[in-house]
């Protein structure tokens, strides 16, 4: 028996899911936001092999990383993100592409991940694009630590998909019908001349595919096993995979609740939920949480406002890449691939071109955001609906004002209590992404993802001084005088 223990123990102590060295780190902070709504004063966090090995209170030991006045939070979790995901990752020639995994085709070394990491986001749920009714399986990724395919990117700067936290994404909105057209008195010209073109058609597609999975899955040697799309639907019906529904209008949210009741989805999460506050009581009764889409103080900003002039200027004059001189640091190109323009053309483009990498998302947001309010998380949490916040495409441009911490600040400004707002981007966000055992709170045994802020994180002038992902320092901007 003891011989078996000796065999088993080394396996248990092996680091999981991270390229962590055996390094030990100790981080001490005046205030630790645990991530579940509690605070610890004078906290000391010990890290070993990429995991948090101890959390205690006390004076900072010698050798610990300590910045006076700094506050420590878990790494922020972006519960709804489109980093590296655009319309090219979704196959539109049919409506049910549930078997396609977004982590297989997302651009994992997109500069968006680095921008997110520098803003304190250590993990994100990559949501498939909304152009198909069944978008595919989204997955949780760490924003740092993967080996980039880009030869010019800094090492470890790519995202790293994790093998837990997958969820099937459905879209009940205008997005999947955005380019479809009905038959016009002849055979269709292209693959967009087909159903669905209305909300009824969208929901019919969902029902049809789930009923097909039910019928085919019930037989022996079921075709559902061979068809990857139906295999995912079977996993949903068996309760092994959660469902995320992108629904903005309140009637779409209600439809999602009806479908969950009809098919017995074990775990349903509403994504974006722009009008979810109008049916908050139904959500609270059903126990369905909501990942709120990007919040803006100015409601019009949530609708495809386009890039600002400063962002266009930065696109037009990116940092110079000069490769002929040895030893110069190389920037790697922004994946938007824009052509530099100047002057009046710049301003006109800023007014007309959409921000989003997906035209479906653009049109859907534009048409369905009449009742958008930045008070959405406050209204939902007061009604008893668990909420998390997501930045969606907020990291795709150089301006950082849409990053997840700013979402938390906006939520706090509009009525969410401070600790609850921080919880919405850490602990609650991790649990809504299915990663509660690994991420979201600073507790022993969890992955060592920490962010040291220069002050209270919800203050608008607080910035990340230190970002640790899987026990390795990803960003170090501490002032030189200390430590």
């Amino acid at each position: 028996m003891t011989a078996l223990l000796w065999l088993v123990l080394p396996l248990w102590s092996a680091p999981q899911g991270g390229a962590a060295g055996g390094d030990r780190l100790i981080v001490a902070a005046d205030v630790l936001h645990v991530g579940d709504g509690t605070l610890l004063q004078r906290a000391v966090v010990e890290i070993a092999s990429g995991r948090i090995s101890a959390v205690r209170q006390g004076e900072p030991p010698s050798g610990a990383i300590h910045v006076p006045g700094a506050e420590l939070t878990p790494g922020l979790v972006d519960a709804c993100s489109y980093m590296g995901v655009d319309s090219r990752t979704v196959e539109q020639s049919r409506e049910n592409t549930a078997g396609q995994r977004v982590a297989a085709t997302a651009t994992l070394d997109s500069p968006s991940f680095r921008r997110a990491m520098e803003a304190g986001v250590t993990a994100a749920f990559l949501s498939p694009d909304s152009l198909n009714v069944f978008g595919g399986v989204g997955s949780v990724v760490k924003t740092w630590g993967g080996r980039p395919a880009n030869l010019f990117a800094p090492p470890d700067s790519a995202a790293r998909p994790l093998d837990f936290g997958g969820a099937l994404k459905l879209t009940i909105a205008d997005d999947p019908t955005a380019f479809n057209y009905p038959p016009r008195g002849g055979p269709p010209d292209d693959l967009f001349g087909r159903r669905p073109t209305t909300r009824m058609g969208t929901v019919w597609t969902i029902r049809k595919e789930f009923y097909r999975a039910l019928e085919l899955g019930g037989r022996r040697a079921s075709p559902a096993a061979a068809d990857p799309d139906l295999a995912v639907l079977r996993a949903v019906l068996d309760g092994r995979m959660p469902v995320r529904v992108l629904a903005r209008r309140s009637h779409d949210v209600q439809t999602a609740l009806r479908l969950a009741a009809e098919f017995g989805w074990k775990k349903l999460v509403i994504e974006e939920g722009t009008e979810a506050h109008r049916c908050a009581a139904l959500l609270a009764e059903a126990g369905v949480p909501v990942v709120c889409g990007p919040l803006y103080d100015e409601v019009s900003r949530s609708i495809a406002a386009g890039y600002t002039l400063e962002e266009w200027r930065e696109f037009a004059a990116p940092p110079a890449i000069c490769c002929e001189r040895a030893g110069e640091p190389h920037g790697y190109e922004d994946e938007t691939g824009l052509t530099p323009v100047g002057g009046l053309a710049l301003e006109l483009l800023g007014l007309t071109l959409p921000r989003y990498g997906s035209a479906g998302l653009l049109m859907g947001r534009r048409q369905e955001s009449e009742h958008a309010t930045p008070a959405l998380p406050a209204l939902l949490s007061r009604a008893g609906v668990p909420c998390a916040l997501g930045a969606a495409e907020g990291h795709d441009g150089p301006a950082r004002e849409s990053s997840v911490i700013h979402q938390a600040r906006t939520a706090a400004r509009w009525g969410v209590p401070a600790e609850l707002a921080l919880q919405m981007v850490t602990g609650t966000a991790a649990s809504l992404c299915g990663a509660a055992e690994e991420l979201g709170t600073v507790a022993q045994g969890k992955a060592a993802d920490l962010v040291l802020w220069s002050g209270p994180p919800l203050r608008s002038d607080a910035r990340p001084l230190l970002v640790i992902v899987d026990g390795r320092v990803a960003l170090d901007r501490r002032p030189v005088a200390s430590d």
Partner: protein
Amino acid sequence: MHPLAVLALLAPLQERAAFILEPDAVVLEDGKAQPGLLVLVKRDRILAVGPSVPQPAGAERWRLEGVLAPGFVDAFSSLGVAGRAEENTRTLTPQLRAAETLDLADPRWRRWLAAGVTAVHVVPEPVNSGGLWSVNVVAGWAALVEPAGSGAFAGPGAPLAQVADPLTRQAFSLLEAAFGGRNTRAGPTSLPGALELLDGALLAGVPELAQRGALVFVDSAAAVRAARSAAQKHRFAPAWIARGDVGSYGAELSGELVGLPVLDEASYEPRALETWRRLRAAGVRIAFGSHREEGPPPPQALRTTAMAFARATGDARAALEAVTANAAAIAGQGRDRGRIAAGARADLVLWSAHPLDASARVKSVMIGGRTVFRAAPREDP
């Protein structure tokens, strides 16, 4: 029988007897021109290379003034294609062959031969740009062409090239530029869709794929990863042709055999040379090919690209390998062509200096042991 006819019949046989070449220097696999080496050639093969070689009875000894190098191999090309090598009406065309589209009387073959190219790997068109109805995920078989006739015919109507191997590798295309958005009316519109089609085609079976291998056109990291897992699942060996901005996904190709386009004004971008350096540092085996959408470049493109590569990376061996041995490996003939070694084909070019030397020019070209080109003698000043 007329005595002259008898002599004409005998002449090709006499050419195939063994002979020993004694050039000023021979370029071996290390890329350096080594003096004092002899090359024994019999029929179409090199039998031995060394300071001394076996001397079979009746072998002639040819003293050559110049540097003997392996002939250049164009790793992927559209030379000699009449029209376009693509079938617009279907997405999966594994049974089609690029060899069927060749014009073997195209005068450009002769010019490329005169530039020192002894084998051209013609590939089917990977992007179905002319048609709006489908993309070419499985494009068909590539072919290896020698830019010299077989010698059986002579005179103005003789073909200037012959197909050495009509089935070299099956071409797969996972280029994002080929499918995306509304360019295609029947799908696929994205990489995952193209992968499903590829998976379906491979499940249905592509004859000879396992023996011969595939050539995959890629321009993104996701395409490389997906094609690699398809290759493991369906058990075939892929070679790669990297398009687009190779620097943005080159680390994914570490350790693989990759074809890159030759350097010209259209494809040059400020970090092209640095991308070459980094690919080499990442362990990528590079080969160069002249396939371009606007048609073949000038015949010297391979050599000038190799010279630019040597200058950019400081490695003449890798530069020469990129236009000889690695390119032959992409064409599925890595043991037979692209190197001067015992057992390889006698595809040799006699230069006036080392081929990567700017002053070098082709003096004569031998393909399969037969001299197919002699440059007009030039008086050096």
